[in-house]
Structure formats: C-alpha cells, structure tokens
C-alpha cells in the first residue's frame, strides 16, 4: 500500500437490483483531498457509504489497516423536543472539554459552557451541521468523509467550514473525501477530483480535469469557467 490510504478497484454496487455504481477505480494518498462531483442521483452518497462499509459491493476496497474514519452524513436532523444537549452529544464520544472546545472553534462555533448546555434540536440548521462536523472531528479521524456538508448553511458559514477543513488538512494531516455539488474554490484546493454519474466521468488533478468540456459531461450543458 506504501503511502496509499485507500485503493478502490473495479467497484460495482447494486441496490435493489439496480446497478448504481459501475466499475469505479481510484486511489487516495495520505493528506490528500478528494472531491466527488456528479449530478443528483449519480451515486455519490452511495459511493461514500460503500467506502464506509455500509453497503455490499463487488470489486475491491482496501483501506490502510487500522484506519480511523469519520463520517458526516448528508441527512442529520434532531427533533426539537429531544432533550439532548450539545454536551451530552459530545459525551457519546470519550473526549475532554478542551478537545470539544477546540473542535467547536475549528468549525467557527462558540466554544462556551453556555453553548454546550443548548439542546441540539434548538440549534439552527447551520449550527447543527457545524456541531455535527465538530463532533465527527473531535476524536481526530485520519480520514474524514463528508457528504454534502454545506446543505442548509449560508455563504458565510460555508466559507468558515471550507476554511476550517482546509486548515485541518494542513495542520493535522487529515485526509478528506468530500461529496459536493460545488465546483468553486474548494475544487481548487483538492488534490483529486472524481466525477461520476453511476460510472466514472473523469478523474485527476483539478487543473487537469476541471474544464468546460468535462463539466458539461457532469451537468449536461455548457459551463464557462
């Protein structure tokens, strides 16, 4: 495996009799950022969940042995009435207060005792999503897999999270796999882009593959950069 943290070869995934991912091959090295692009229904989330071992597959997925994965799912809602405080939510993982505060700061949230006492269900959707990201990051996974982490977050919030993700990557040598619809700034910070629509559309370094022609392949129309 050398410095490879993940190798995927000839991956096929069938859900309810339908082939949703076909013959995908790619790899990822330590400290790299991989961004997965594609239209709705392209199989991006399925790919992420398959990498996490949540779906059955054919082909090969080899993670480096003993790797610690963190996952930010696309859907995460909490009932307003659930009496679960932010502090208790972090209590599901065995972490210290200093680690919790550090993690909250990294995603641009208020790191205070008052915030920890808040009920998870009373947070705004942006705060909840950032809290979830902080929760996933708090025990320092070596690879973080994020599925559309910007859903429900305003532009300012998006920038904070993107900056913190890139900051983390630089400071802590974290490897990131990010499913995103966006082809803006974050793509330029990626090491690799994988575009798919059930099968691989293109794969490579952003400067090589982010072209109008390639993007038209994803979104089936001409996009000027």
């Amino acid at each position: 495996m050398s410095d490879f943290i993940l190798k995927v070869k000839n991956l096929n995934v069938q859900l309810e009799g339908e082939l949703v991912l076909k013959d995908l091959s790619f790899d990822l090295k330590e400290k790299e950022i991989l961004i997965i692009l594609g239209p709705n229904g392209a199989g991006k989330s399925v790919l992420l969940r398959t990498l996490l071992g949540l779906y059955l597959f054919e082909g090969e997925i080899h993670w480096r042995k003993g790797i610690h994965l963190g996952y930010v799912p696309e859907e995460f809602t909490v009932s307003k009435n659930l009496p679960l405080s932010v502090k208790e939510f972090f209590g599901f993982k065995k972490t210290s207060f200093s680690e919790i505060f550090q993690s909250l700061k990294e995603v641009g949230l208020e790191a205070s005792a008052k915030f920890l006492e808040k009920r998870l269900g009373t947070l705004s959707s942006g705060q909840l999503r950032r809290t979830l990201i902080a929760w996933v990051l708090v025990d320092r996974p070596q690879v973080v897999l994020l599925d559309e982490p910007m859903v429900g977050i305003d532009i300012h919030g998006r920038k904070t999270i993107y900056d913190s993700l890139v900051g983390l990557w630089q400071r802590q040598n974290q490897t990131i796999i990010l499913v995103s619809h966006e082809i803006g700034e974050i793509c330029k910070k990626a090491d690799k882009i994988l575009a798919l629509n059930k099968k691989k559309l293109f794969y490579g370094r952003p400067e090589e593959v982010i072209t109008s022609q390639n993007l038209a392949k994803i979104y089936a129309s001409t996009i000027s950069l």
Partner: protein
Amino acid sequence: MNFLYSIISGIFIGGLAGYLGSLMITKRMALVGDALGHVALPGVALALIYKFNVSLGALPCLALGIVLIWLFEIRTNLPMEALTGVIFTTSVAIAFLFLPESEISTALIGDISRINVLDTVVSVILSVIIFLILRRIFNQMVLANLSENLAKVEHIDVKKYNFIYLVCIALVVALGIKVTGSLLMGALVITPAAAARNLSRNLSQYSYGALVIGIISCVAGVLIFKFFDLSAGPFVILTATLIFLISLIFKKK
C-alpha cells in the same frame, strides 16, 4: 408482608419501566410497550388458568413476538410499529379464545396482591440487571436513532443493539404485567417518560426523571391498594397521568 413485597416490586419495576420509556419515546416506539403488553396476553391467560407466575407465562409469548417482529423488520423493512400491530392483535385474538371470564380483570389490569417473596426477589434482581444493560446501551441507541449510518460508522452494531433493546422491553413488560396487567402496561412505560420529557433540559434529567416518576406512580398505586382496597394497576397509571398533567404547567421550552 404482602404490602412490603408489593411496594419493593413496584419501586424497582416502576423505575425500570420509566427509564426504558424514556428511550422508547426517543425512538418513537412509545406504543410498542402497549402492544407488547397485549402480545403477552395468551401467556398471561395460560398462567392464570394453570395458576403459575404470570411473568413466566408472558415471557415465552413476548420472546416469540419479539423474534417475529425483529425477523419481519429485517425481511420487510416495514416500520416496527406496523409489524408490532400485526403481532399484537393476533395475540389478543388468540388469548380471548381461552381466557376465562373470571380472570379477564386480572389479566387486563393486574393484581398486585398476588406478588409473593419469590416474585419480589426475581423482580429486584432482573430490574437491576436490565437497568444496567439499558444504561450501557442508552447513548448508542440515541445516536443510532439520530443517524443509523453515523452510528454504524462509529462501530455500533445497530442490529445487535436493537435486539438487546427489544429483549429488555420484553422482560420489562413481563415484569410490569404483574403490577398493571396487559392493558395498562404500555402506560407504565410511556406516561412517566412523557412527563419527564416535559420537565427536562437534557437527556440525563429526562431518563432519570422518568425513572423517579415511574417509582412515585407505582408507590402511589400500591398505597391506594393498601389503604383503600382499590386495584393498584389503574391508580399507578392515573398517578403517572396526574404527574404528566402537572408537568405541562412547568414544560421546558
């Protein structure tokens, strides 16, 4: 002595039922306790006819019911409450094929005067064991309820935990049936937890609040049975309902 046995059993079973209820409401399974009370009915009927412990009668029926619900859920992906509905109505239909008319009241609303020393010892030991198991799996179950995929990635075996949780529900229902009977068992699980939810700011206040309200309800029911010679089961539930109504006044926003 019987009063002492009743009150000790009531404290442990009521507290445990309340604690379990807090998890059941979180998982939107509030009515499953009610339904399982009915699933136990054929076994309760047999126990009353052949004069053996109703919990022992209830357990095989509950075990069978739980395993069927669990298997059906894996096979069909239908909501657990729909599957529970199918099983519990079938159980009631079967029980009423042979339940004698003279035992209907005991089967449906319980008879705490029949609790003896062996029942009490078994109730206390089982209650403590089940409480410790539930406390151990509580956070994992809440996380799995927020996001099953997230829980799986955090190495929580959701299917296994769901099974342990269902077994705990079956055992609590089997124990509680002695206090409140099949018909009211669901309320012993739901109402204390619903009241506690209104009064709590966090998960810890909620789960332990439900435990305390469960204890208060059972103790009140047993005291009413002792001093007014009225059936304990209905008064256990009415006490819990009264606390629920009071909790509405102090409901946390």
